């Protein structure tokens, strides 16, 4: 309807000048819109797409001194080398394990939190809790890591002092300086950092559920848990699916800053993930081909995972992402 009004107006103006609505016609009518959108387009082409040709390094024996022209193409040789590389295998294993852990713990947390927040009936309490819970998301990983390192020091950290004073432990727990403890702390700190922020999107989805459904459920004698199970969760299922797909795409990626911030000599066995591998082999050891190949592998696996998850979601009758 609305479009037809627009079109008829457009036709009136256009009729005398153009017989067919070609690109020129739309350019003339909407030149201001095209002008606006040119600016971000120029940016992505200059700073993102212009880097794509560099991916060919993954198929070359790239020598920085010789440049592209002086380096030879070697086909899939680099990839073969990588898959025999012990460091790569460790980094790949760590990336997969920690991303799965993150997905298992960090993904449900904001959903649960949003449901809890939604059940709060006291307005000011809800507001204050929300404000406080969002805060960690706004702090840098350096700040979070230094605060946590301080709190979790085996000898003088607040948490260990507290536990020792209570007589629960006799020796400080090396939360961030022993690899198995580190794994748990690393994942939990991740949940803590993102949980509050992540809950916003689910809260907004819950607000979109019709109050009638809750009333009907209440009249039918459903208690709080039953209402959550039968009304709230189905109501936010599309949001959960969308976010799950997006998260699956990150299964290979890892947050470089988070890893750097929590890295130390004692935990390097677990902290050594693909982002660190790429940084160390690439910028550290100037092995550009190898770092590019791993980056390409990471990006492709991420892209494929998103596409597969999207297909599955659609075949299950969900909206999907793309």
């Amino acid at each position: 309807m609305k479009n037809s009004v627009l079109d008829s107006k457009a036709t009136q103006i256009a009729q005398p000048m153009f017989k067919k609505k070609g690109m020129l016609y739309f350019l003339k009518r909407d030149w201001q819109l095209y002008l606006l959108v040119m600016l971000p387009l120029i940016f992505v082409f200059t700073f993102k797409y212009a880097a794509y040709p560099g991916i060919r390094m993954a198929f070359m024996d790239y020598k920085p001194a010789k440049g592209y022209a002086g380096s030879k193409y070697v086909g899939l040789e680099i990839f073969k080398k990588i898959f025999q590389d012990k460091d790569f295998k460790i980094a790949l294993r760590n990336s997969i394990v920690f991303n799965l852990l993150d997905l298992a713990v960090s993904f449900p947390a904001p959903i649960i939190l949003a449901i809890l927040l939604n059940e709060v009936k006291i307005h000011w309490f809800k507001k204050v809790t929300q404000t406080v819970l969002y805060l960690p998301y706004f702090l840098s990983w350096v700040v979070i890591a230094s605060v946590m390192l301080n709190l979790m020091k085996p000898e003088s950290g607040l948490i260990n002092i507290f536990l020792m004073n209570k007589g629960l432990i006799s020796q400080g727990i090396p939360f961030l300086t022993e690899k198995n403890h580190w794994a748990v702390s690393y994942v939990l700190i991740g949940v803590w950092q993102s949980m509050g922020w992540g809950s916003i999107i689910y809260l907004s989805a819950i607000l979109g559920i019709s109050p009638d459904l809750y009333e009907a459920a209440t009249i039918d004698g459903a208690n709080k848990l039953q209402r959550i199970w039968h009304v709230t969760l189905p109501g936010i299922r599309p949001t959960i699916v969308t976010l799950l797909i997006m998260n699956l795409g990150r299964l290979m990626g890892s947050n470089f800053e988070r890893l750097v911030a929590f890295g130390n000599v004692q935990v390097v066995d677990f902290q050594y993930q693909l982002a660190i591998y790429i940084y160390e082999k690439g910028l550290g050891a100037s092995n550009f081909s190898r770092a590019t190949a791993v980056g390409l592998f990471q990006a492709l696996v991420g892209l494929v995972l998103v596409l597969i998850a999207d297909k599955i979601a659609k075949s299950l009758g969900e909206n999907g992402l793309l």
Partner: protein
Amino acid sequence: MNKLITKKRIGFGDILIMIILTLLSLTCILPFIHIAAKSISSNTAVLSKTVYFLPKEVTFNAYSAIFKDGQLVWSMFYSVILTLVFTILGMILTICAAYPLTRKRLKGRKVITFILLFTLYFSAGLIPEYLLMKQLKLLNTFWVLVLPLAFSPYNMLIMKSFFLSTIPDSLEESAFLDGASDFTILGKIVLPLSKPIIATISLFYAVGRWNAFADAKYYITTKALQPIQYLLSNMLLSSSSDAISLAEGAAIQSTPEVLQAAIVLFSTLPIICIYPFVQRYFVKGIMLGAVKG
């Protein structure tokens, strides 16, 4: 009648939920209160492990040591400027992309959207991007921290959804039929109605820039061009020379632990200052904008 009463009554379940939420909130606040208390306590109190959530023997020595350190103060000032420039540019780019892409009459809208979003799902990777920066002669410049990240497809999506969901099509269409140009519609109708999302996205850009240090680690070696978070990561996380150099100058007044606490708070100050003001906007902004990630 019965229904009204059950709605208002606070039962056991509600109390349990409130206890859980209170505990979670405390985990977000207490660590920072602890660090704040440490930063203004005396060395002896901190070393005796008796500072919990209240400072003991209050002293601001650590902070005065920070202000005496040229590098930290400069880095702070530099980061503020960097964040401002980055946020303004980011907002211009985001609005320039989001507004046209909500106009259904724009031909090629789908293709343009795809081009802008594709980089979100497939990035060239560290080394190709590093070489591109080198080729563009941006390594070790102020602009390498501004330009590559200035356009965020994710923020553009949020802003686009906000425009679509809160500004009625009819409003813009009638203005268009009245002969208003797109620039006028954007400036006079859309932007004035979009204050919450402008505040929200500005905050995202500003916080993102303020907190990021990976790009500085990749692209910057000149000391004077290092933003505060990168400096911080060198000072606090490793036993690099930076940590020692400041500690030496300040050793007379503060132990490394007190100084560390003060530096952490100092670098977070801008966020703590703007967060409460923008906070009331962003919940509304993200809720309306986040229809579909």
